[in-house]
């Protein structure tokens, strides 16, 4: 894989589909060259975003959540949007402290934006492993 490949996954905003996303993340992160620990980190963080997006019930609750995976050699970007998801307000409550701590520690960069196809953007590279200590 020498350039960006893109995979798009659309799921109903329901808890039963989060495990399907975790399986997908395993496959695509492996393609980028991540080791098993880093793959687990990306799975955990993607799930945390989806959990909150589903529990918060943005939009009408029936429009799909769309995940876009940009795959590059040694790095991955996971963009999550759809169903009215707003990254700026997604983790605004005190109860979200655990989830935010997990995202900030396990990913290299977390970008929370307003409503759009990339309301949340998670970035990770194979070169940084200091969160694994």
């Amino acid at each position: 894989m020498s350039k960006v490949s893109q995979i798009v996954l659309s799921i109903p905003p329901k808890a039963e589909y989060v495990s399907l996303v975790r399986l997908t993340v395993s496959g695509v992160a492996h393609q980028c060259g991540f080791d098993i620990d880093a793959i687990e980190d990306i799975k955990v963080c993607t799930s945390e975003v989806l959990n909150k997006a589903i529990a918060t019930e943005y939009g009408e609750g029936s429009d799909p959540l769309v995940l876009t995976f940009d795959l590059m050699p040694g790095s991955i970007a996971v963009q999550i949007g759809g169903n009215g998801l707003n990254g700026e307000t997604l983790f605004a409550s005190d109860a979200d402290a655990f989830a935010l701590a997990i995202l900030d520690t396990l990913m290299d960069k977390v970008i929370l934006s307003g409503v759009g196809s990339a309301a949340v953007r998670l970035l990770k590279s194979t070169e940084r492993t200091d969160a694994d200590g």
Partner: protein
Amino acid sequence: MFDLSSLTDTDTDKDVVRIAISGEIDLQAAPDFKKRLYEAVGEGGTDVVLDCADLSYIDSTGLGILLGALKRVRLNNHHVFIRNLKDSIRKLFRITGLDKAFILEEAQ
């Protein structure tokens, strides 16, 4: 999918509730996990030992449920011991500071 089994050990000086958790604790499993864990812990009148040898995944929702169970137990001046955590899950306890709230024991 997850499973939870529990028993009250009355053989030692003080009663201990031993709970084995296996599988994946995620948003889908959370309501049932919360119900069964709180049933097993009861009013929190004993120490609790959670054996997580076969727990493969837990998210922040599940960690929050564990914290709720801990609060019940701590109100009665008892403790929650967690055994056999996988490294990937132990890392989540460390990140969230829960390694200071629970008593994490090394793998046996």
